[in-house]
């Protein structure tokens, strides 16, 4: 079986950074199939290991439901897959065909940790990293009980983003781009036009018009019994009120602690550097 799409699209970034929104926009493009998270990097077909803590069989059953594909068809298509990469290739061939599209996009936040694996297997892939104000990230995680201690968050954010961006510099700007969440929700056209060019996609207004998607929230609820807060928020039209939530949601003492930990971990300086480098407007040249 050959790779149907030599230039797949990967989306990654820290949790609660807007990766789902970006995937949802891409999914609206007439040429892009972009289903739910696969966690392909955790799958090891040779050892019958599926995504975190699951057997391969369990993962296939889950993915069949998520992608609305036939479970047997996935098993047959992936029977000779020797790695997570090969497994993903086969799965996405089925997905692309079922959706009658020509390209596929995979979004799992952790993709940012596997930029090296992505480009080792798919040298012509395109990777989009989405970056959100890390105080907003922490506030959003906190709001759903997943914030954890500020020092742990600060170190994890720094490790994920610095590592991903370092790999991104290695593969170069023709294959790796970063977009800012605040820019995306405030100025979708300004962000998505250059991203469409970067991805070699013909322009489609569908990339900037988002009226909300409820189908995946319902699908995950039906399949797993879990109410995904991320997918629930995607059922609403594009909104900007999640920008700057830290000002409202973080207590001053917690904010101070967080800020200190972000300075210590290097996360804050990384964020500032990326904010300067990847803004949608040519801010560095402008006064």
């Amino acid at each position, binding site marked *: 079986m050959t790779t149907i799409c030599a230039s797949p699209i990967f989306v990654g970034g820290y949790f609660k950074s807007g990766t789902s929104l970006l995937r949802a926009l891409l999914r609206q493009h007439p040429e892009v199939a972009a289903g739910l998270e696969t966690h392909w990097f955790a799958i090891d077909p040779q050892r019958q290991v599926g995504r975190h803590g699951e057997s391969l069989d369990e993962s296939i059953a889950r993915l069949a439901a998520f992608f609305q594909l036939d479970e047997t068809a996935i098993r047959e298509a992936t029977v000779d897959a020797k790695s997570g990469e090969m497994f993903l290739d086969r799965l996405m061939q089925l997905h692309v065909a079922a959706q009658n599209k020509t390209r596929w996009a995979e979004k799992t936040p952790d993709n940012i940790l596997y930029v090296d694996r992505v480009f080792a297997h798919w040298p012509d892939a395109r990777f989009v990293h989405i970056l959100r104000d890390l105080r907003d990230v922490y506030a959003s995680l906190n709001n759903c009980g997943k914030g954890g201690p500020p020092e742990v968050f600060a170190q994890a954010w720094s490790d994920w983003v610095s590592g991903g961006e370092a790999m991104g510099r290695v593969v170069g700007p023709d294959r790796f781009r970063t977009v800012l969440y605040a820019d995306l929700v405030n*100025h979708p056209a300004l962000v998505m036009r250059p991203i469409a060019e970067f991805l070699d996609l013909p322009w489609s207004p569908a990339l900037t018009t988002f009226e909300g998607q409820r189908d995946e929230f319902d699908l995950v609820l039906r399949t797993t019994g879990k109410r995904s807060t991320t997918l629930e928020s995607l059922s609403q039209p594009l909104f900007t009120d999640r920008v700057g939530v830290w000002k409202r949601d973080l207590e001053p003492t917690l904010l101070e602690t967080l800020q200190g930990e972000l300075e210590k971990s290097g996360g804050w300086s990384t964020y500032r550097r990326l904010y300067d480098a990847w803004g949608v407007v040519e801010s560095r040249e402008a006064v």
Partner: protein
Amino acid sequence: MVACHGHTHRPLGTLLERDMDAEVSTNLEALSKILGARPGWVSFPYGRGDAIPKDVERLCEKFDFRVALTLMPDWNVAGQDPLRVCRMTENQFAGLLGEIPRFTDSRSRSVA
């Protein structure tokens, strides 16, 4: 025209109100000493998205700014909000040439 641009080039909208105000007042103080007059315009560093304060009106009222410049690459139309003026670079202007309004367009437009 000399405008206030914050004092350390930080995206004002991403700061707490007290820090935002300090950035502006420090810069105004410095510029006033040099110029002998107080600038009545502000130009937001980075000028986009979360860098533009959500409470532009409060900030401008507090510091008596009549005009606020963003870096949003778009035309300014008659009746444009003076606290959210757009601008474009030559490159952006060239990219928008296809979208120049026709003479039949009743609205007058200008590039800030």
